Every structure is written in structure tokens, then in C-alpha cells.
């Protein structure tokens, strides 16, 4: 590839992507603080159900752990 090609692509891209304003318009700290204070979403019931089912299956059929581990 030549420097000329490189320059052509650079020029084409610079024309296609107009400069963006990189100045921030507002203080984001209040939003960050709100996000920090928000409680994390609780785990949905079906995740608990899946965990319970998996534990139950492995308790009753412990050999399945080996089969499961083999396929991981």
C-alpha cells in the first residue's frame, strides 16, 4: 500500500465523518451518583428455579456431574 492510498482513504473518511464536539455539556456526577445508589436488579425467579433444579438433579444423580464436566 502506498502513502498516497493511505492519504486518499484518510481524506475520504475525514470528509465523511464531520468533526464532533468533544466538549461535555453538563456535569455527569449527579447521574453517576444516582446510578451508584440504585439497587441492583434482583435475580429473576426462573434463575433461582434453574439453580434449584440443577442442584436437585446432581444430588439425586451424582454421576451426572462427571458427564456434565466431560461435555464442558
Amino acid at each position, binding site marked *: *500500500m502506498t502513502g498516497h*492510498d*493511505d492519504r486518499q*482513504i*484518510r481524506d*475520504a*473518511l*475525514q*470528509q*465523511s*465523518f*464531520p468533526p*464532533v*464536539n*468533544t*466538549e*461535555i*455539556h*453538563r*456535569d*455527569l*456526577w449527579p*447521574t*453517576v*451518583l444516582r*446510578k*451508584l445508589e440504585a439497587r441492583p436488579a434482583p435475580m429473576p425467579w426462573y434463575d433461582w428455579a434453574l439453580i434449584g433444579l440443577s442442584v436437585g438433579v446432581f444430588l439425586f444423580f451424582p454421576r451426572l456431574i462427571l458427564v456434565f464436566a466431560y461435555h464442558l
Partner: protein
Amino acid sequence: MDLFRRFALGEIDAFETLVRQFQGSVYAWIVRIVRDPGIAEDLTVETFWRIYRARHRFRHDGNFSAWSRRIATNLALDHLRRKRPEQSLVADPAGVPQPNHLLQREMQEEIHQAFRRLPVKLQVAAMLALVEEQPYDEIADALGISVGAVKLRIFRAVRILRRQLGHLGVRREEIQTRVNKNDRT
């Protein structure tokens, strides 16, 4: 106790100081990649949220600016991966429509589509290096790769774009002829 140590211990006042000090540079970095002020603000907030959650992993003698930039870049990469490929990054320029605007727009759209077809990692390297003209070492730091790897990504991006836009030289001449004709009439 210095600011970074207090931040790592979870002091919210120290974190507030850091957010106010670095939000401008983090936002500027993200908006250069995603090119949308609203999305850049959301990703900046998300970046600081992740920074706070990962505060235990921050080395007190480390470079906070580089660390925050790397987290911001990863979030911007994830955003671009999720974004629909057909969604254009071309901002509509404000004001009265200029002559030949549609023709220019058509060409810009072709370049955009070719750019959006690039793998996201190549897009980010090319955007930061070729469009935003950021230093290679800063891009390398932000992407967590070597300067050589950045150059390689740019090389690959240019090669793919050159192949995809091969016909554009002809199209450009054709469009220029039409523009010249319009100017004369």
C-alpha cells in the same frame, strides 16, 4: 492520604472529585468513537459506574486516566457491536441545504457503509487514528494492545476500505462531472 488511595477505599467524596476531574476527557474519547453526544454521555456514566465497582483493582500508583480510557473504549466497542450495521453515523448538518448536497451525501453514505462493514476493532482503530488523528500510543493504551498492533489494524482497515471503495474513484469523477455541470447551469 492521596485521592487515588481514598478512591480505592471507596470514599465517595474522592470518587466525586475524580469524576469531575476526568469526565471531560472520558466523554471526549468516547464521543470520538461513537460520534453521538447522547450515547457518549450514557457511556461516560456507565464507565464511571464500572470504575467505581472495580476500584479495588486500581493500583494507587497507576495511571487513572489510561485506566478509565481503557474501560471507556471497551464500552464503546460493545456499543458498536450491538449497534445495527445499517444505522448511519453521518450527522445531518444543520442549516440550509447546500447545492449538490445530495450528491455529496450519496458518496458519504457509500463511505459510511463501507466503514460500518469493517470489524468493530478495525473501525475503532481507524476512526481514532485516521479521522481523529489521535496518537498511536494513546490508542494502543486504550485498546490494550501494542503500537505495532494498532498500526496493523489500521493497515488492514485501509486495505479493506480501499478494496470496497475501489469503484469510488470512478464514482467520484462521475459525481464531480455532475457537480461541475450543475455549477455551470
